[in-house]
């Protein structure tokens, strides 16, 4: 049988459904792998093998008696530790919430429980989804499976690392300024920030209410669509929830891209910021692959990155400080240094500036959505640079804002981070596919076609060769 560690969700699901793979054996294999390797990667903040085996036993009993629930039944996963799982602490990787035991499941957790997925544990995050990587927290930061001396992106750092390392076939992350797509790109996996409101945020610790998204990280595009399909859905108790039908995000996978109009937002990574040459080469090669597959490629312009970034950060830090003010008053010393400084950026933002940022947001979003009259999908950079060293504080700070992900938190657009090759040093490169609201199925179609044409999906971190 294929190495269980790198089974895709789709492969595992078929084996589980047809009873060729036992959920218990599958969970045991991944538990053993995590026990062997996670000491070097710190992807898990709270590893829960007992819960995993209990879930796996239940899944096995149900499948054996003909009660297969669907494509995630018996499939292991992990949750970023700002997402509630009843009875376990939701720490946000912070001393401040070390004892914050969740009373109930987040909606996304409820949905995965209902789908019969197997819970492996809580995954590392940058503190409160904003400050990291930090070495002054109660738990160490996650590291990049492609080279553990390097940053694995964030803030859904453990979600990216665990998925890339073959610890789980999927993980759930959150994204306020790029925090699903950054670890996806840094770790060479697929990350989807869907349309704002597509996945309920209820039971997820907020960073910034109006920018927060929940979404999946997986090793393939098809897997990502399957997980998104399971977790998406209207939630009347989430004020930002989108009241739209969510089925069908897998419906276009396998269709070709001939005739699709692809708009390359090149100025983001060549003019507004100059990306690393290897990153540019990776994106341009990907664009050529899409053209070779029959897409009509053209260049498209939008507002400068700096405008989107100022809008995103003004809103994010203002909303975040509102959430954190009481803790900043009573326990400032209990934050990691990086978190404290980033959250403090919102302390003295003028009310007029916050309101104006939301007014600018409406204009930026409206103008960006209008561009999709002329294109079907936009392509642009995710990160400007491959992962830097995790112990190089200056490089971490330098690369923190060198990204083109925050614009799509501002616009609420779906944005899919897809691997786009590797640097000479063996670190992942990546790009984003972006669409109009509700176009997740189309993004998955394009991502899947690209993935099938390139084969990056078959490459895994080298440390696995030690086994």
């Amino acid at each position, binding site marked *: 049988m294929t190495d269980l560690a790198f089974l895709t969700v789709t492969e595992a699901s078929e084996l589980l459904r047809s009873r060729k793979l036992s959920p218990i054996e599958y969970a045991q294999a991944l538990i053993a792998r995590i026990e062997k390797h996670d000491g070097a990667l710190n992807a898990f903040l709270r590893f829960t093998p007992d819960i995993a085996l209990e879930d796996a036993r239940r899944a096995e009993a149900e499948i054996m008696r003909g009660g297969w629930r669907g494509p995630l039944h018996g499939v292991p996963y992990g949750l970023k530790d700002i997402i509630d799982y009843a009875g376990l602490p939701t720490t946000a990787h912070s001393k401040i919430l070390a004892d914050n035991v969740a009373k109930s499941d987040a909606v996304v957790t409820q949905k995965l429980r209902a789908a019969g997925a197997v819970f492996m544990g809580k995954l590392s995050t940058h503190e409160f989804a904003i400050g990291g990587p930090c070495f002054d927290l109660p738990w160490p930061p996650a590291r990049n499976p492609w080279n553990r001396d390097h940053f694995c992106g964030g803030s859904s750092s453990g979600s990216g690392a665990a998925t890339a390392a073959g610890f789980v076939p999927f993980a759930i992350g959150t994204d306020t300024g790029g925090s699903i797509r950054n670890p996806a790109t840094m770790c060479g996996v697929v990350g989807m920030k869907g*349309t704002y409101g597509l996945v309920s945020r209820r039971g997820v610790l907020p960073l910034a209410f109006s920018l927060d998204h929940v979404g999946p990280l997986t090793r393939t595009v098809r897997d990502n669509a399957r997980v998104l399909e399971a977790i998406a859905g209207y939630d009347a108790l989430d004020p930002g929830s989108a009241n739209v039908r969510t089925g069908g995000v897998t419906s276009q996978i396998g269709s070709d891209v001939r005739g699709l109009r692809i708009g390359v937002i090149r100025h983001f990574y060549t003019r507004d910021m100059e990306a690393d040459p290897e990153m540019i080469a990776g994106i341009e090669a990907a664009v050529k692959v899409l053209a070779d597959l029959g897409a009509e490629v053209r260049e498209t312009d939008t507002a400068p990155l700096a405008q989107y970034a100022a809008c995103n*950060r*003004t809103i994010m830090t203002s909303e975040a400080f509102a959430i954190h003010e009481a803790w900043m*008053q009573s*326990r400032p010393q209990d934050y990691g240094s990086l978190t404290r400084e980033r959250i403090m950026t919102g302390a*003295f933002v003028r009310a007029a500036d916050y309101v*104006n940022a939301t007014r600018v*947001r409406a*204009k930026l979003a409206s103008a960006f959505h209008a561009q999709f009259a002329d294109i079907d999908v936009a392509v642009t950079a995710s990160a400007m640079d491959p992962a830097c060293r995790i112990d190089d504080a200056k490089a971490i700070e330098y690369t923190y804002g060198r990204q083109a992900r925050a614009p799509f938190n501002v616009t609420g657009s779906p944005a899919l981070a897809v691997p786009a090759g590797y640097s000479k040093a063996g670190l992942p490169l990546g790009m984003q596919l972006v669409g109009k609201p509700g176009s997740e199925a189309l993004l998955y179609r394009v991502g899947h076609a690209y993935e099938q044409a390139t084969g990056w999906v078959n490459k895994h971190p080298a440390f696995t060769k030690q086994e």
Partner: protein
Amino acid sequence: MAHDITLDEVRRMAQDIGLARLTEDHLQQLLRATRTARARRASLPTADLTPADEPAHVFHLDR
């Protein structure tokens, strides 16, 4: 043009909003953070806004 905010000003502003437990290192962080936020303001394209441009207080996409 606004002057560059000073540590003493930040210290006073912090007291005003109840950030009374900040150490000197924390105040230095708050100073840098406040300067960053003020610099960011210049990148917001507010000159293009008209009085009719409404805020997205609770952002909700129409689809």
